[in-house]
């Protein structure tokens, strides 16, 4: 498997095919004398912004901690939860139960529902 | 290579930008000419009943504003300000006719406008012939 080509930046979907973000980062575990092990997928704007520039990540984190859902931590998905890697990366989770949808839920509850026709 | 490209680009730019007052005058005259032609078409089509009154009136007013804006800081030919003044007078007459819904009254200023358009044309030609 080519990790960068096949996994990084792919769409993550939960077990109900609900979109829950992109693979913004891949964390490996280094153990002395053993090959590096793929440990987690990460999804979240701060991880993404870090790839552009570390300073960019700090700005994004500062903005995210003040506005809306006030959630800055990237979400980690253990590699053992990955079910299938194809067009999308399918994971054995329920998106609604994870913090990946924090902003989605916040907007839905505090903005969209209050607009006529939104609820 | 890069420097040569940049130099040639600058040359082209310098050659094409209307830096001289003469170029500016020609550009202004062309714009005024275009707006005058528009006014004529508005007048004629209004006379035929092909456009709404409100649109005709607003467009004629807009044309007066545009011409005033274009010719605000015009220097050079001394005969020009007089011509522009006449042109604006004609446009005002047309606007008045449209406002009062009197189709007969627009005929005279329209003829007048055609003559003025002709004069502008001559002026533009004379300017264009100058090196």
């Amino acid at each position: 498997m080519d990790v960068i080509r096949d996994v990084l930046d792919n769409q993550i979907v939960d077990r109900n095919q609900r979109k829950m973000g992109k693979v913004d980062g891949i964390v490996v575990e280094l153990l002395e004398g053993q090959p590096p092990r793929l440990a987690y997928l990460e999804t979240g704007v701060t991880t993404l912004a870090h790839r552009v520039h570390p300073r960019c990540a700090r700005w994004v984190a500062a903005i995210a901690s003040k506005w809306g859902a006030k959630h800055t931590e990237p979400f980690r998905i253990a590699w053992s939860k990955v079910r299938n890697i194809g067009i999308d990366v399918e994971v054995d989770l329920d998106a609604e139960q994870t913090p990946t949808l924090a902003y989605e839920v916040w907007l839905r509850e505090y903005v969209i529902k209050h607009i006529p026709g939104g609820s | 290579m890069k420097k040569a490209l940049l130099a040639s680009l600058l040359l082209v730019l310098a050659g094409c930008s209307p830096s001289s007052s003469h170029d500016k005058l020609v550009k202004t005259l062309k714009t005024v000419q275009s707006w005058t032609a528009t006014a004529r078409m508005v007048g004629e089509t209004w006379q035929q009943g092909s456009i709404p009154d409100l649109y005709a009136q607003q467009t004629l007013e807009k044309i007066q504003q545009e011409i005033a804006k274009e010719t605000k800081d015009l220097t050079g030919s001394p005969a020009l300000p007089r011509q522009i003044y006449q042109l604006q007078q004609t446009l005002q007459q047309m606007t008045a006719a449209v406002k009062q819904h009197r189709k007969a009254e627009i005929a005279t200023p329209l003829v007048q406008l055609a003559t003025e358009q002709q004069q502008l044309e001559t002026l533009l030609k004379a300017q264009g012939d100058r090196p």
Partner: protein
Amino acid sequence: MNKIREIALGIVTSIGGFLDVGAIATAAEAGSSFEFQLIWTIVLGTICVIALVEMSGRLAAVSKHTLADAVRERLGFNFFIFPLIAEVIVDFLVLGAEIGGVCIALQLVTGISFQWWALPVAFAIWLLLWKGNFSLIENGISFLGLITLAFVVATFKLRPALPAVAEGLLPTVPQQDTAHYLFIAVSILGALISPYLFYFYSSGAVEDKWDKSHLGVNRAVAGLGMGFGSVVSLGVLIVAAQVLHPRGIHVDSYEQAALMLTQPFGYWGFVLFAASLGIACFGAALEVSLDTAYILAQAFGWNWGESLHPKEAARFSFVYTVFVFLASLLMVVGIDPLQLTLFSMALTAVILPLTIIPFLVLMNDRSYVGDHCNGWISNSITIFTIVLTFVLAIVAIPLEVLGG
């Protein structure tokens, strides 16, 4: 039978959907200022846009990925961020211009200044996005868009001199007004080869669940549909060249363009112009708003879909809601709609290479499009488009800026 219906629908869609404020404005400007001389840019732009739209449809049908998804996955976020930011900025300006087109159409008919219409128009666009679903928007607006065929009918009524029209097919550069000529050429290309079309079209294809069996439909829609859309643009150019050019009217504002159909059709011509402008721009405004929401949602992996209820795709719906109202503010403050249109079309041409270069990679990637890779013709057209728009934009825009 179903496929024929789909093709017919697709073509109708394209006529209404792919003609927008940019195409109308640039063609009117070109015809009034340079008679038939710029016909070649419309023909050239059409060939390029047909090829590229076909590719984005093929990409979506075979790989099940939208263009934005595919670009991020294959080229990484650190590349994708550039076309993403460029596209959002251009979308913002273009949306302002499209809303401006609708407002001008309303001003022509009612006499109430376009600035007052900006917010009501934005509200109407938003309401349709909020309440409607994808097929309603595509089919409804596009069906109304058939009214723009008035320009084609007018062309036949005006009987242009065919040799002169044919001469316009050959690219020439005039002695006078070279800078303006090139600028208009760039704007026409920018108006026809709009990047939002590719993102939007591929998102629509994924939303409609296209698969390999749709490749024929895709080819027909891209070819015939975009072709028809361009025939209308050609109609606008020829009518402007026949009606406005001989009188010495150069289109500097929409009020001047509004006169062009009065010669062939009288009073109805005026109404038809306003209706064509209004409907085409309204349709395009819907598409541009959606496009922005699509690319942002796809960039960050949010739930998206015009057919979803707003609460199922909260971030997606939120983006188009905010975007439509922000863009309408450009009109509220009174920026000249025609100048904004020409400017944003030229800017579109500048960012075009950023959008098109990924096609070269994606459409040659067997793990993505399998046996449906690009042939040498498609690859050549892609490279040609990149070079052409880039060179033209680099030359023409500084010229126009310095030339005032």
